[in-house]
């Protein structure tokens, strides 16, 4: 975006070492460094009595206040936390004016896509399985995540666990989605409306998986005509095992995040990922026909490699069939 929404108040810049004291609760925070900034404010790493925390500050109190409302709601929810824990909300009085801020748990981890970059295809499945579990709990609480995208996810270490950061898009079920990013929005791709319902998030999850294979993403319309998401999935080797799950996610075929999670889990359990070339996910799109033909060839190879596995499955089935017959026979003998 080229210019700010309104020129009322300038954004505030905090410096490392600067101490912020809240106007209302008088708690103090010392800024360590900037963690990131978005449309609704800047997030800093800060030191406090509770240890390291994340502090988000903005010039506009509307968005800060709504985000605090969401965070507060989820800090009351039982069980493992859905999103960062909420600590404090206050105002910082600076020379230029009053800036609202809130303080939440600092989640230390690696961004979602960089984490997956050098890892095998099974890791994508595992991370999305974790994410779907959290989404299911969120949906059961009556909320939809809304703006689901890799930038809003982190993977923590030991153990590796996906966590979400930004609650700015969270919307109550049945309302209009508050915030979204076009690539992950089903309205943009013509796959449905923007009402907050579980299938809205599941579409974004499917796009998240596609994003893994297309790190620089792609647009709806090219000079060649509208982009077909299905052909985009088919063009990437790394997505092949997940094709059905992604497609059903896009098409809104899953009743719940749990249903999608179950199917994805069985894909991860029953696929051999090591035979697949790893670097595939990093190729940049739009190189033309030669690339896709090559990809198709590779896919054929993969299918051939899969055959022994199918054979094994068949012989197992046959063996168990024989076993059942034998047991029946034994029963027959006993009577």
């Amino acid at each position, binding site marked *: 975006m080229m210019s700010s929404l309104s020129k009322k108040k300038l954004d505030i810049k905090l410096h490392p070492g600067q101490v912020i004291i809240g106007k*209302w609760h008088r708690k103090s925070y010392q800024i360590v460094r900037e963690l990131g900034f978005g449309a609704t404010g800047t997030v800093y790493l800060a030191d406090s009595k509770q240890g390291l925390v994340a502090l988000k500050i903005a010039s506009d109190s509307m968005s800060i206040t709504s985000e605090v409302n969401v965070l507060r709601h989820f800090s009351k929810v039982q069980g493992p936390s859905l999103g960062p824990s909420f600590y404090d909300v206050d105002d910082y009085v600076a020379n230029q004016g009053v800036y609202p801020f809130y303080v939440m748990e600092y989640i230390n981890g690696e961004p979602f896509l960089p984490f997956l970059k050098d890892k095998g295809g099974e890791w994508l499945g595992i991370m999305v399985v974790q994410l779907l579990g959290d989404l299911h709990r969120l949906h059961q609480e009556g909320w939809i995540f809304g703006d689901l995208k890799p930038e809003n996810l982190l993977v923590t270490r030991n153990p590796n666990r996906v966590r979400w950061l930004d609650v700015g898009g969270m919307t109550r079920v049945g309302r*209009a989605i508050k915030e979204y990013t076009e690539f992950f929005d089903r309205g943009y791709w013509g796959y449905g409306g*923007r009402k907050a319902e579980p299938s809205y998030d599941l579409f974004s999850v499917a796009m998240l998986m596609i994003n893994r294979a297309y790190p620089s993403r792609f647009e709806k319309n090219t000079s060649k005509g509208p982009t077909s998401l299905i052909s985009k999935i088919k063009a990437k080797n790394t997505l092949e095992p997940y094709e059905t799950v992604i497609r059903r996610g896009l098409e809104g075929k899953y009743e719940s995040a749990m249903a999608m999670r179950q199917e994805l889990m069985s894909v991860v359990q029953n696929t051999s990922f090591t035979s697949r070339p790893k670097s595939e996910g990093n190729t940049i799109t739009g190189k033309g026909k030669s690339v896709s033909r090559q990809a198709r060839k590779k896919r054929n190879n993969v299918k051939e490699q899969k055959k022994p596995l199918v054979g094994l499955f068949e012989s197992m089935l046959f063996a168990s069939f024989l076993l059942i017959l034998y047991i029946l026979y034994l029963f027959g003998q006993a009577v």
Partner: protein
Amino acid sequence: MKKGTLRQILLLTDGCSNTGEDPIAIASLAKEEGISVNVIGIVDRQEMSERGVSEIESIAEAGGGISQVVYAKQLSQTVQMVTKKAMTQTIYGVVNKEVSQILGEEKELEDLEPEKRGQLMEVVDELGETMDLDVLILVDTSASMRNKLPMVQEALIDLSVSLRARTGSNHFALFSFPGKRKDVDKLINWSPNFDSISGAFKKMATSGVTPTGPALQEGIRIMAKRMKKKGTMDDELALEEEA
């Protein structure tokens, strides 16, 4: 309880007005009528002139709305965001006025402690979701806009997708300026969605003049007529009670 209607004029243009009344003055009039004016400036490869940007900002400020200058590519996301933000801003403004009436002059929402602010914000969110919304869209169709019109069309369809997800009802009307003979031509009358939009821009004559002020004036007139017809001049009052 009847929740009332939010009224917006959304102006899409790519440059300065060059004929007729001053659009900034007319936007102030809109605000007095309880209509907020949002302006989106669309740029091509070359950036918009400083004068153009400043006019866009001033119109929105005078009209109590929001302005944004974007590349045609980002139009869809911007149009829906500006519309929604402006709705929240209007409601927030009304709530704020209430707060200063209760707490005394010079007191605003920001002077409340954060906990109370949170409760009020829930009310603002709730109203934003459930209030009815009328948006009158004015599209600049002067010669330089010709190649941007497909993007405008797409952005408006996208806006209707976004707003349809709300609980409250929405009505749109689409006008272009300059018109063939008048300052403004009606393309689509008040309707709950934009399914009929494809092809609407085909019958436009594109000429060089940009009568932004007269177009806004006509927009206000059309909205005022609709308000009278619906007989809901006391909407703002209803909103205040609700808040």
